[in-house]
């Protein structure tokens, strides 16, 4: 098998590096480790598609539970790596997310004794004006705190849905959950977020649901 053309890889990088990095970061904690994981995923993709025999890619370990510090008491399970058809965009997307997830979980397992300490630069920033940036940052931080109230599974499914715009089926493939389970987790997670928004004191809210009666 010949390696994929560099142009194809550039296209994949342009399209998926950002969501994959953020997804990996949501699992491993810090940005540089997330970049490690994503670089590793892409190199495995190249090796895999060029038939260089990357047995590790197909491993579905880690089997050990994810430490509570990261998983918040629940242990996201690794998902089996789907078959890869490089000509099918959806296959490639699913494959990249699944391998990123498994590699990130593997990283967390191997580094479970290290207490993650996010750096200031681990939070994304936007190029906004000072006022806009401040307001936006307040809202974003407030929302991210809301997300902390969710279970790891809920956070992960919500992130895959709204950050990466994956379908229920694709989320199920990436996480190893059933489609029904994905629907349920998403439903419960969003409902909990809405409840938290309703329960928060009005004057502390940087955002409100406009549709609230």
């Amino acid at each position, binding site marked *: 098998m010949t*390696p*994929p*053309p*560099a142009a*194809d*890889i*550039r296209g994949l*990088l342009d399209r998926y*590096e*950002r*969501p994959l*990095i*953020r997804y990996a*970061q949501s699992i491993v904690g*810090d*940005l*540089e480790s*997330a*970049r*490690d994981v*994503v*670089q*590793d995923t*892409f*190199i*495995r993709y*190249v*090796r895999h598609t*060029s038939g260089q025999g990357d047995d590790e890619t197909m491993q579905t370990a880690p089997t050990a539970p994810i430490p509570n510090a990261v998983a918040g008491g629940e242990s996201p399970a690794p998902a089996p790596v789907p078959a890869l058809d490089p000509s099918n965009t959806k296959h490639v997307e699913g494959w990249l997310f699944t391998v990123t997830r498994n590699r990130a979980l593997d*990283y967390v397992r191997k580094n479970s004794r*290290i*207490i993650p*300490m996010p*750096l200031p630069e681990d939070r*994304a920033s936007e190029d906004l004006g000072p006022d806009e940036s401040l307001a*936006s940052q307040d*809202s*974003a931080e407030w*929302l*991210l705190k809301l997300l902390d109230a969710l279970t790891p599974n809920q956070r992960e499914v*919500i*992130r895959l*849905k*709204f*950050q990466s715009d994956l*379908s*229920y089926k694709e989320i199920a493939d990436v996480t190893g959950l059933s489609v*029904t389970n994905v*629907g349920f987790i*998403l*439903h419960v997670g*969003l*409902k909990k*977020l*809405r409840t938290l*928004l309703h329960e928060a004191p009005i004057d502390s809210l940087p*955002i409100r*649901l406009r*549709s609230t*009666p």
Partner: protein
Amino acid sequence: MNHDDPKLTAYALDSLPAADRAEIEALLKDEPSAAQEVRETKEMAGIMRHLFQSELTETLTPRRREAILQAAIGKPVALSTELPKNVIVTEASWWRRMGVWQAAAACAVFGFGVYALSVTLSGNTRTSKPIASVGDMEVSIHNLAGGSTPQGAHQPGIVTPREASPSGIPSAIAGSTPSVAPTFPSPRTNIAGSVELPNVAIVRERPQQPTMVGSDPARPFLNSGAASIGRREKPAPGTQAIADTPRVEPQNFAAAVNPAEKVLLPGDLGDVTLSADEASRYYANREYLAARWQEARSIQEGSTYADLARHFRRDGGSTQKDAHRFVMIRCPFIKVDVEFTAEDGKPVAWPVAPEARIRMVSRPYFEPEQGR
């Protein structure tokens, strides 16, 4: 239909099969509360989408992309996690990525050219000279025992990219077998537990964009010259803020600081200068203590003695009847005072059972070890 049905959420997210949509739409006509549910879910989804999309700013760095593309053209490339721990690979500097001319223009705008000249005239230059340049990367020999290897001098046992890889890719990245095997003198361990290597080949970035001193008083800055107590100055070209250096593995803390440079820590009445050796320890200890602090703060009211005993042991000093002092195992200077409670809520005296609950725990405090 139950309003707490995941189908309502799936409908709001346009993820419901067509067959089920009719059922939901009929429901929404009859039940305003269900319609309200759907509206709120749609709005919440919009907020989440906006939040997450705004986070999508981080990309792979040029070097990481290059490694992937090298793999795509069939070059042997090591996975990022396989990089040797003694080699620091950092990113291309901003001005290198911009191109020489743009960088020069930017330098002119910010007046660094003048500043660079003044530094050159005063003799404050890096003593560690690059011995090779590959792409946007410099390779230099740092002799942590003192001084640096003159440019062009060959050191047995030191790998340089051009020696290691005729393709121009450093062996550390290319993963190929170097022509000169990397053999390092025996490492010695410093007090922070990191390992210092007397001679280390460091693949290091070209100088980064200097950061204005004073923009963040919490950040220490490197300075290639003498200490500047009582005043603040911009870091000289060729130096960089230590806080801007990439995170490195603990064993590389020592190697991360150029021995020719000093670190300025901002103080209220003037900066405090650290030698390279002190800076290495500062860097390592700061990370270590931050981790210990988190460890100590993980013990809270309601934790058990078993939880506590994973991180703390009883202090050897005198103990009151129901208040006990514990000392952190990994850092005996950190202590906490703890009171336990039995199942009936009453305070309990020593010895306590592993499942005894903590009724009160003080904030961690710093106190010398017994006998010191």
